[in-house]
């Protein structure tokens, strides 16, 4: 990759090379058992250049032709966006534990063994279901260098488990999905991985008819994403710049219930997005977004920060608004590990406090509704009726809708005292919210 940087140096004012070498080893089980094993070795580069104040970008996996990569980037810079972006040069404080050689060295046989054990554990308790399991190791080696002298590299490794359990009877199909990630395979305890799925399958055995109206809802850690997604968009420095965020002019104001706090923290190794530097080579940090209900700040990449006249928060990641890094897409403002502060009630307390409402563990149709305005509208994937503080059955064909800004400001009943990692990058307790619109068929 240094040859790309050298070749670029003579043709441009600034250049930055991002190089990713990724090794993935997934083993997959379906209802019949082990179905496929795949070895994957991907290697690619992304080159960003600045020529006379214009930005150019190219990516390639054809590393044998560095000149072509440089020429393509230079060609795009001829018409590229005018910017006063400066590629960074900062000291990087490495985080510990993001890579373990023993994780990288795990054999396919060892992953098969874990997957098989998980499958069997589920089937012991629930013999009437189809179990899909995937176990995968990922080892990323990321190397960023720029013409200002930055030369940073990091290896990140993890082992991840995905679960999808389906109970199908004519006229009714119930699916529960879950995922877990760890830095070491020994941290993936079979009981922990299967507990939630088994609980939901048990709760889902009986069905109930859902009520309609304005009701209290307990969102579990994974159900809470429906509420949080509008905030994830609204706190993005880019949305603020584009005038799409309703939070743009509310810095320092109390906009949520005072028990609600939100932090983005790339430096938590427990989160899948842990890294010492972002995909632009900016050191990562812990960024307080909301504290005690007050809007504290937004998250930024370099380019957005420059336009807004602030510093990057080290949130320049490749691959969309919730990360999922690959070398192809240009970095943009994206969250890393999002942490919702816990409260003081147990999830059971929250459920007990509800006379008539729902427990929502998962929704369909994420991203529907006018998210910029804070509106969400989702069908439920896994939801249960609560009557007199007890769960009495699974409900189907229920639409939830509401406005996250309104609900988290005026209708927060309570927060759970225990946070769970969901989707790898979100650590969240259960959230009990009143006045959610429920439309049942």
């Amino acid at each position: 990759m240094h040859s790309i940087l050298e070749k670029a140096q003579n043709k441009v004012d600034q250049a930055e090379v991002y190089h990713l070498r990724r090794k993935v080893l997934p083993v997959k089980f379906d209802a019949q058992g082990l179905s496929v094993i795949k070895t994957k070795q991907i290697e690619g580069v992304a080159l960003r250049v600045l020529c006379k104040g214009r930005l150019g970008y190219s990516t390639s996996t054809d590393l044998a032709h560095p000149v072509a990569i440089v020429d393509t980037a230079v060609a795009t810079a001829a018409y590229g966006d005018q910017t006063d972006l400066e590629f960074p040069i900062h000291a990087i404080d490495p985080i510990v534990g993001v890579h373990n050689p023993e994780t990288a060295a795990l054999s396919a046989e060892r992953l098969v063994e874990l997957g098989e054990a998980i499958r069997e554990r589920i089937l012991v308790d629930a013999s009437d279901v189809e179990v899909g399991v995937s176990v995968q190791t990922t080892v990323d080696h990321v190397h960023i260098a720029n013409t200002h002298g930055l030369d940073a590299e990091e290896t990140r490794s993890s082992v991840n488990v995905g679960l999808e359990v389906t109970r199908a009877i004519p006229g009714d199909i119930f699916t529960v999905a879950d995922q877990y990630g760890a830095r070491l395979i020994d941290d993936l305890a079979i009981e922990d991985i299967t507990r939630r799925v088994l609980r939901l399958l048990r709760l889902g055995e009986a069905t109930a008819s859902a009520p309609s109206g304005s009701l209290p809802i307990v969102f579990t850690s994974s159900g809470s994403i429906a509420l949080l997604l509008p905030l994830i968009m609204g706190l993005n420095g880019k949305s603020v710049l584009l005038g799409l965020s309703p939070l743009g002019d509310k810095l320092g104001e109390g906009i949520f219930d005072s028990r609600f706090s939100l932090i983005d923290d790339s430096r938590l190794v427990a989160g899948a997005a842990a890294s010492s530097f972002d995909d632009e080579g900016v050191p990562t940090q812990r960024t307080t977004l909301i504290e005690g209900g007050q809007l504290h700040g937004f998250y930024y990449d370099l380019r957005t920060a420059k336009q807004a006249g602030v510093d990057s928060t080290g949130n320049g990641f490749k691959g969309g608004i919730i990360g999922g890094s690959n070398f192809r897409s240009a970095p943009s403002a994206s969250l890393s590990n999002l942490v919702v502060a816990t409260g003081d009630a147990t999830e059971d307390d929250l459920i007990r406090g509800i006379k008539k409402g729902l427990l929502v563990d998962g929704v369909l149709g994420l991203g529907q509704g006018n998210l910029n305005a804070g509106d969400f509208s989702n069908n439920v994937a896994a939801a249960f009726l609560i009557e007199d503080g007890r769960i009495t059955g699974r409900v189907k064909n229920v639409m939830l809708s509401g406005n996250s800004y309104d609900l988290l400001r005026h209708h927060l009943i309570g927060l759970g005292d225990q946070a769970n990692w969901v989707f790898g990058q979100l650590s969240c307790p259960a959230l009990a919210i009143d006045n959610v619109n429920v439309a049942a068929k």
Partner: protein
Amino acid sequence: MKQTIKQAIAGSSADYTEIRIERRWLNRVLFQKEKLETLESATELGGIVRCLKNGGWGISVFNDLTNLSKHVREATQMAAIVAAATSEPVVLADVPTVEEEVRVELEHDFRDVPLQRKVELTQSYNGIILGESSEIVATQVQYVDRFAEITFANSDGTYLVQELPDITLLLGAAASDGKGDIQQGMETIGQAGGFEWVEGMEDRAQIAAKRAVAMLDAKPVVGGQHTVVLDPMLAGVFIHEAFGHFCEADFLFKNPRLAKIMALGNEFGMADLQVVDEGYIPGGRGNVPYDDEGVRREKTQLIKDGHLHSLMHSRETAAKMGAQPTGNARAVSYEYEPIVRMTNTYIENGTFSFEDMIKDVERGVYAVDAYGGQTEFEQFSFSAAYAYEIVNGEVGGLLRNVVLSGNLFETMRSIDAIGTDLKISGGVGGCGKGGQNPLPVTTGAPHIRIRNVTIGGK
């Protein structure tokens, strides 16, 4: 390359070996507001080897093409581990072997169009949207062209080279009333075709902008059960997302209970209902002359006269279910193995004119285009991009927040009118399944009417 690939396959100790090598080119121009947000050019070169040994699959994916034999050995090793653990060995249905080069000829090949022209055209559409009204606060105007050259060979003797072009244009506008309400308007164009498809779209840009502004005055829909008329775009998305995925045999053949629900001959809707998946329509983004197992395209009748008629298959699912492969084994790129996917999927014309469809509807919703949707088995949920109320048999004012949801089987049975104005669209995104996203497809339908659809809202 041909020699190297053939040698690597000849040296394989697996029972079946296939190698797919892909070269891909991409150009992307994105304007947001006044700003050229993204201008990028990408090239990809990579490969995948898939081996079957004693009935187990092993796969190796790589960018370094210098040692194909090494990847064949790796995939074979992985296959042996799978075979040792599996009780259901994989068998592949026989298909004719082919040796062919499928080159495309584009009317105005986008590879010959200078980058500057692509930037200027995108910028001009962006300018039209920005200039439409002072209420326009943001834009998203994106041009993307992709070209792929795919080489496929297997140990049966098939050797194919195919070219796949793809061009898309997104014209997106966001309008604000200045009091916190933000609404969108969006028009999309997607084609397996040349640059001529994205030129001359000034009127479409204007339509997107005008709609975003008009939506500011749209009334929120009242939640509950409604008679809904879907336009061809939304009906097409519905038939693809909610129903089409159920006809993908790989989904079914590992789920025996679901397979029972989806048994051939079962009734799914009115006698007028015909649904097909077709591997080639002129300019269709879902076109695949041969799929990623080297199987020739088909026209597959999924629903015939309201009854399930046929499923979509790969070689593996066809062998398992005693059917013929249908040319639906597709991979989104060399990083992935082929799985059963749709191509161009649509509802065929029925007998109702649009006027007849709405004339007896006292109160209902006319839902147009989709902003997104999700299905989980028989549960589905779709957002209409925009909608109109239907009052006393006539189309009335604009509605917002129209999210349709329900149970697929009930909803299919509740379709009671099918129009005569079939329209197939490519859109700008694609289909996602099994982590493989976005796969270019088209979807289409005439207008359709559905009774008792649940719409969320207050």
